[in-house]
């Protein structure tokens, strides 16, 4: 049986659908109109997968554990592992004096600024679209923060055991983290006495910066270290962000360079959330 080619009426309907799609696309890209609906869907899928796991896999695991009469030990093991991850994140801040911070003074300043017993919260990555992270410009992840108190984490810095990963931009049932490499993300960075607003490149592990030689006459070098300046009020200052990996001259005055980040968000599923500074 042959199929009839679209009539003028159905062509008009196709045109209408494409126009409507384009309008929705415009609204989503420019005004993020559907962000709430997307986050709702995301939290629903994460919650349902969590529930499904609790209903199906966990009981089987539990029976298995009982059969081996090691449930107490396993539970204790889990607790210890969580404690270990927690202390790992905290110790990382204290111990990485040579790599993580510019100098000892900045560590003291950082520790003074934040009561070390309070501001860090361990979190676990719940959902991370690696496909988007590797192929596209949107670099976001969803995390579950282990915190009983009712704290608003929006704007909080997210770190892993290598350095700063990003910041929290949405915090309802699950927290959404905007990574440093996301194209819409900007972080003020510093090296010696030079400032630059580094923008996410949309490539994994790379952020970019453009500066004018007229206001920054000193040349930069491959491998030069850049630290967070703390000027935006979001990130703590003097934390190592990355090293210069590529330098491109745009014209006589403007220089563009890439920074390889020291922190890889794929490195660990456990991360730390620093309460708003």
């Amino acid at each position, binding site marked *: *049986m*042959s*199929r*009839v*080619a*679209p009539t003028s009426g*159905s*062509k008009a*309907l*196709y045109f*209408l*659908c*494409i126009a*409507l*799609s*384009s*309008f*929705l*696309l*415009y*609204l*989503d*890209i420019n005004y993020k*109109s*559907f962000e709430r*609906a*997307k986050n709702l*869907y*995301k939290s629903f899928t994460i919650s349902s997968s969590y529930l499904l796991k609790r209903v199906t896999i966990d009981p089987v695991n539990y029976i298995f554990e009982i059969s081996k009469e090691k449930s107490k030990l396993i539970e204790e093991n889990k607790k210890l592992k969580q404690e270990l991850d927690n202390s790992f994140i905290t110790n990382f801040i204290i111990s990485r004096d040579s790599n993580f911070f510019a100098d000892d003074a900045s560590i003291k300043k950082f520790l003074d600024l934040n009561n070390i017993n309070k501001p860090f919260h361990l979190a676990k990555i719940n959902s991370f*679209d*690696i*496909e*988007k*992270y*590797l*192929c*596209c*410009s*949107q670099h976001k992840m969803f995390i579950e923060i282990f915190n009983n108190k009712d704290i608003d984490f929006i704007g909080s810095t997210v770190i892993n055991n290598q350095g700063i990963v990003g910041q929290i931009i949405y915090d309802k049932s699950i927290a959404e983290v905007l990574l440093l490499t996301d*194209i819409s993300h900007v972080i003020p960075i510093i090296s010696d006495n030079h400032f630059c607003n580094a923008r996410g*490149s*949309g*490539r994994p592990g790379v952020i970019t910066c453009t500066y004018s030689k007229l206001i920054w006459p000193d040349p930069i070098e491959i491998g030069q270290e850049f630290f967070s300046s703390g000027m935006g009020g979001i990130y703590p200052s003097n934390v190592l962000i990355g090293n210069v990996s590529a330098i491109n001259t745009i014209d006589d005055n403007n220089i563009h360079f890439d920074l390889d980040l020291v922190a890889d968000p794929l490195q660990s599923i456990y991360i730390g959330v620093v309460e708003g500074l």
Partner: protein
Amino acid sequence: MRNIGVMKLLVAIFVANIIESYIAPILIKAYINIPITFLLFSFVIYKSRFNTNALYAFLFGLYVDFISDSPIGLNAALFSMMAYVVNSYANTFKLFSFIQICLFFSGSSVFYIGFSHLFINLENFSYLVLFISLVFNTFLFLVIAMLRLYFPSLTLQ
């Protein structure tokens, strides 16, 4: 092929999207992109005995936008465009050889990748990804199309 039901297609697309999310991070390291959900939908409307309604394609596109975390409207527009093209040339396709059909689908998949990257990856738009995906998809579809010659039981009724 018999027309597949809406629920079956919804589930199939959902599963295809999950498979795509697992495969894509591996393939992208080799600059290859296979839009499985788009190809599945295109194949279903291509094999359908009846013309696909524009709203049907639009709503399926919206559904894919939600489950794949794409900008809302992107897949809706592309699915509607694909449905229009397939419906318009449904009878012409009968004159095509399977190689031409494979080329059409690989071309469509590359158009999909290019168009979607204009919105979600403009800053790092890569022609290399488009070219390698075109070559890879063409060979992949040819292999899939030739499978029925060697394994006639796989032919869709």
